[in-house]
């Protein structure tokens, strides 16, 4: 693991999201109502909708383009839709968001 300090968690609104630009594309950081943070790929597997712009409810997000719903924990599409998004390890310590960047670096090095 390679934890990188992304910044203060209050930079993400509750039930909202921000993106981190990486070598593997945009990663979305979500903050839920109960103040948990999740990191997933920002790209909807359906037609590329920016998931960080979706409505965050419970531990899920709804894609803003055609309403596919994804679990932020497993990355799996919910309900009848099939597909999944990548999830990344992230944690919050002392109010800072720490994102595991090892997977982006591996890609960058390859």
């Amino acid at each position, binding site marked *: 693991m390679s934890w990188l300090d*992304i910044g203060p968690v209050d930079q993400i609104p509750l039930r909202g999201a921000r993106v981190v630009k990486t070598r593997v594309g945009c990663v979305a950081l979500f903050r839920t109502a109960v103040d948990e943070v*999740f990191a997933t790929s920002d790209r909807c597997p359906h037609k590329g909708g920016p998931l960080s712009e979706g409505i965050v409810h419970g531990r899920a997000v709804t894609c803003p383009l055609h309403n596919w719903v994804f679990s932020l924990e*497993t990355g799996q599409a919910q309900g009848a839709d099939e597909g999944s998004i990548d999830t990344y390890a992230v944690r919050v310590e002392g109010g800072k968001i720490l994102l595991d960047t090892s997977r982006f670096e591996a890609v960058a090095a390859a």
Partner: protein
Amino acid sequence: MSKKLVVIGAGMASGRMLETLFDADPAAYDVTLFNTEPRGNYNRLMLSPVLSGEKTYAEIVTHDDDWYAQHNVTCRFGERVVHIDRDRKVVVGENGEVPYDKLVLGMGSTPFMIPLPGHDLDGVIPYRDLEDTERMMGLGAKTGSKAVVIGGGLLGLEAAAGMAAQGVDVTVVHIMGHLMERQLDPAAGYLLRKALVDKGITVMCNANSKEILGQDGKVRALLLDDGTELPCDLLVMAVGIRPATALGEAAGLATGRGIHVDDQMVTSDADILALGECVEHNGAVFGLVAPLYDQAKVLAQTLLGQEATFVNKEVSTKLKVTGCDLFSAGDFAEGDDREDIVFRDPARGVYKRLILKDNRIIGAVMYGDTADGAWFYGMIKDGTDVSDMRDTLIFGPAYQGGAALDPMAAVAALPDEAEICGCNGVSKIDIVTAIQGGATTLGDIRATTKASASCGTCTGLVEQLMGTTLGDDFVIPTDQAICGCTDLTHEALRRLIKSQELKSQEAVWQELGWQTLNGCHTCRPAVNYYLLADWPLEYADDPQSRFVNERRHANIQKDGTYSVVPRMWGGITTPDELRAIADAADKYNVPTVKVTGGQRIDLLGVKREDLPAIWFDLNQAGMVSGHAYSKGLRTVKTCVGTDHCRFGTQDSTGLGIKLEKELWGSWTPHKLKLAVSGCPRNCAEATCKDIGVICVDSGYEISVGGAAGMEVKETELLCKVATEAEAMEVICAFTQLYREQAKYLDRIYKWVAKVGLEWCKEQVVDDLENRRALADRFEVSQSVYRTDPWAEQARPEPAKQFTPIADLTLEAAE
């Protein structure tokens, strides 16, 4: 001869330790006990009942003089230890030295005082000991006293409730969005707040303290960031604690956040042990008493040379405020593969939530009914696999072991006296009797028993009862529920928000028994709309409950870019505006500039990051958001009218501009489009708009319910009025009626089809008083919403939300 044991601090932890020690071997040590407080061990947790008057100090003393005498403890109460000399193995108190063979540190912690200007004024106190408690109780003796408590955590709320019970006027100032945010989720926080408000306590969340104001060296008021002044005679700060490490640190013991101890409670010096809130064990520090009792046992055993190991377990929290039953335990922090089980019983004010991971409960929050807290807590600690009881788990131990419940069978099995309608106290037998007496519809039941006639949340139960009693004669109606989060229809939801005066999302989730934590993408935007439409001054619009377009104030495109449409009032523009639009298009590399079907210009393909900047530029040229993205007023199309047209009868352009300036910014159930044509030739296509005006010689024909989208419909005449002013008032009143009554995402034509045009006429045409009242309510709402969201979002702080939080592509390249 017994060895010499010195204990620093007569607190909760060291007291328990001494009991264990003496129980096991009364003669092993000769004990000297120091305590800064001028008294021995008492139950600190019980200070709150003392404060509220439910207990006396005498009742909470745990060890009295007899006990110390019996166990031969030399008491040095009221004496602070100032130094530990490890080389000579002596402890230095204010009144002299004592040598030790073994030393135990149990200094607890010190309350953290925010260093606000004025924090050292007289009357600014923490909440930690008997002196603080007595200070607060003294306030209750004087009538009309006021207190402010900073901190909406466990301690702050107990202080607030205790003082309120003494008749003090108390305000709690909390920096976070809901109370006790570390132990409770927003739903439980909502219920707690409600209970405290019912006790007469003022609760201010999201409130930032700025300065403590004083007079003659004494506290006078607390000043908040937003300029609010809260007058007070006493200010209690309950914002956190810091382990009391100073003594240990000065003696050279290893310390971090607390004094380091190992699993045997031994510090970095083999002869010095420590326990309680002053220690740090494996990175953890402590603030609740349960783990401290475990430490006490282990420490006593270590002193006796026995094997023992301290293991830190999950803790649970209860708030000791009468009438606020809450319980929380375990983990709410982030992690993988978690699931929630949520249960709400609005009639009883009950909320329960379990957090599951790998089929094990890892956290529990409960409010209102905490009877099963211990059972859940036990399963959290034991890591019990709950796969077999998942479906009925949330109902507690009483429901385990049975087969899954069929709702009809469950209703049939209810005892006669079971309460069905909490609002009106109607039991099952009352309803069954009414049905046997001839009631066959829900309306009959409401009329005869009042059941389901108030808040309506028991409607489902009443229908099931009718089903079981009437058999096949009764078909349970299946109205379309909003979504899977609730059984309510949009209509019922709107009615309940008004009748129960629900003014926050948390109130809706709880009081109406939502089955999810905070709704979903279907119901949450609807709830947000209903709340802001019904309570424009009390409820603040929640951007996180809006579809992307309304949150970003631009239309998202298929490639994730946005379109920007500035308003052109009534379709009128100027060369300067056009130049500014052209400049913006150049500056931000806008790929497509298009004239819309709504008489204005669309800049398509703007990058998200550029939105605040392009808005700023357009604002500078005097243009504002065109709301081409909103469920709200879109455009008011006009034709040229009397200004230029040889057939024009009235100033249609002028009326269009006036209407647009009146209505812009308003949120409506669905989008709202208007048009004003200057004569019946109708060049502005007014008869296929939501509201259309056709000018004629004698006045204005106002027609409503047109559409030209997925369905094409011609408007129907609402009324004809003589003056422009009347036309404006009718249109505002009709718009408000639509805002107050329609289901979210019903265009006007769909809504009118449901309520009938005749009814609308009665409301806004025939009843002049009602028309005025509706128009007035519209104006109240517009006093909040008639603003430019672009100007708001283009300010530096909100604008940040449009940019990535970090860019790692640059970092990797370096």
